[in-house]
């Protein structure tokens, strides 16, 4: 399986990468770790006459934590995220989720930028970014702009990013309180049948804030405001958790595929969210 031929570029800076994008429009695409794009090119589901490898572009990788703000460069790999001790303590949900993505070989290559820009509903980072209320930084011919992760996803493989823009970083405030990333998959290394990212704040036995996002249960990640709201003000008794799960079920829209029929996916989503809420609460 060899993809169609392409022109290969390896620019050293962002200007170089942007100029190829500008010149070739949607005939050009950037390549990060390649572990979503290359399989698509091999299957000829993606045709990319002009491929711009970002590996040498200066300043796109690395994790910085300043005060409460965490910024992760687009080319930072899942392997880097797992092994960053400071990040693991400032936002342990990042490590917990990354460990559940793919397998070791894929995690050495797969980047956070590729994972969030790809737009595949199966990717785990988009839901996680919505849970964290992250902001994406995009750079294009008109300069830099920021988009909330919660506003970024439009449909499968359709995002707010313009063809001539490059995503340079994701950033978010270090979460406080309890966290959990729970994922149901057919086997280790698989995309989610259902996954849930949960952040909870507990004050004196009461939940004062909750953020819940679900993965691979719709054509975009689903940040369920209603599920979070069902928990706030409660002590997370059974009724509250059930209300949150029901609210989430109202927001997702899974389709039948090789991971199962709709009813099964709704069942898996409910189990996984309940588990994530319980875990996050125990850690809050």
């Amino acid at each position, binding site marked *: 399986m060899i993809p169609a031929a392409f022109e290969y570029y390896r620019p050293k800076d962002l200007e170089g990468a942007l100029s190829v994008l500008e010149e070739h429009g949607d005939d050009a695409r950037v390549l990060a770790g390649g572990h979503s794009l290359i399989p698509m090119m091999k299957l000829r589901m993606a045709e990319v006459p002009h491929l711009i490898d970002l590996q040498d572009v200066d300043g796109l990788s690395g994790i910085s934590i300043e005060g409460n703000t965490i910024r992760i460069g687009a080319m930072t790999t899942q392997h880097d995220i797992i092994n960053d001790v400071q990040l693991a303590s400032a936002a342990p949900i990042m490590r917990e989720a990354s460990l559940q993505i793919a397998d070791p070989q894929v995690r050495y290559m797969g980047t956070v930028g590729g994972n969030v820009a790809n737009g595949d509903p199966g990717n785990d980072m988009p839901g996680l970014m919505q849970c964290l209320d992250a902001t994406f930084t995009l750079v294009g011919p008109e300069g830099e702009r920021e988009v909330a992760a919660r506003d970024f996803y439009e449909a499968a493989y359709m995002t707010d990013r313009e063809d001539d823009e490059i995503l340079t970083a994701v950033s978010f405030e270090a979460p406080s309180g309890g966290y959990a990333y729970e994922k149901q998959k057919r086997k280790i*290394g698989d995309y989610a049948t259902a996954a849930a990212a949960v952040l909870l704040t507990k004050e004196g036995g009461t939940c004062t804030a909750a953020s819940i996002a679900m993965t691979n249960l719709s054509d975009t990640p689903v940040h369920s405001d209603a599920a979070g709201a069902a928990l706030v003000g409660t002590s997370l008794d059974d009724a509250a958790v059930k209300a949150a799960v029901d609210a989430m079920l109202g927001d997702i829209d899974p389709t039948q595929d090789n991971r199962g029929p709709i009813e099964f996916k709704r069942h898996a989503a409910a189990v996984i969210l309940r588990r994530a809420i319980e875990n996050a609460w125990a850690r809050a």
Partner: protein
Amino acid sequence: MSNKKHITLTVNGEEQEFLAEPRELLIHTLRERLRKTGPHIGCETSHCGACTVTMNGKSVKSCTVFVAQADGAEITTIEGLGNPDSLHVLQEAFKEHHGLQCGFCTPGMITRASKLLEENPNPTEEEVRFGMAGNLCRCTGYQNIVKSILAAAAEMNSAKEAAQ
């Protein structure tokens, strides 16, 4: 297409230079151009790990890397780890503990395991299983692969101690 690119790779310590189309997959470069047939093609779809090599210190599936991406890289294949006259500790351990049956997955397994033990010289059984999750085997049921890797780790650690 004639958009060939000049590529330089260091494979098992030896520098290699050639012209190749950027779309050539690293596994094909290694096997067909450079005759390093240790890394195998199992699935060719990024799932099985039979094509695993070490590239710039990372375990990668070489069926999912374009040769152009690897330009300038240092690559180690199973051929760079040991040879029939002087087996790598992991090769010795796989032999001793029946870590292979047909042997198709073995070069990828051992190349991956060598990186795993470099990063975590003293893994638990669970860490071995988790760290080897990108490599599939149709024969062994994994039990003896895990045993082999743990045995190799113990061997390497006692050799290190003896040297101190």
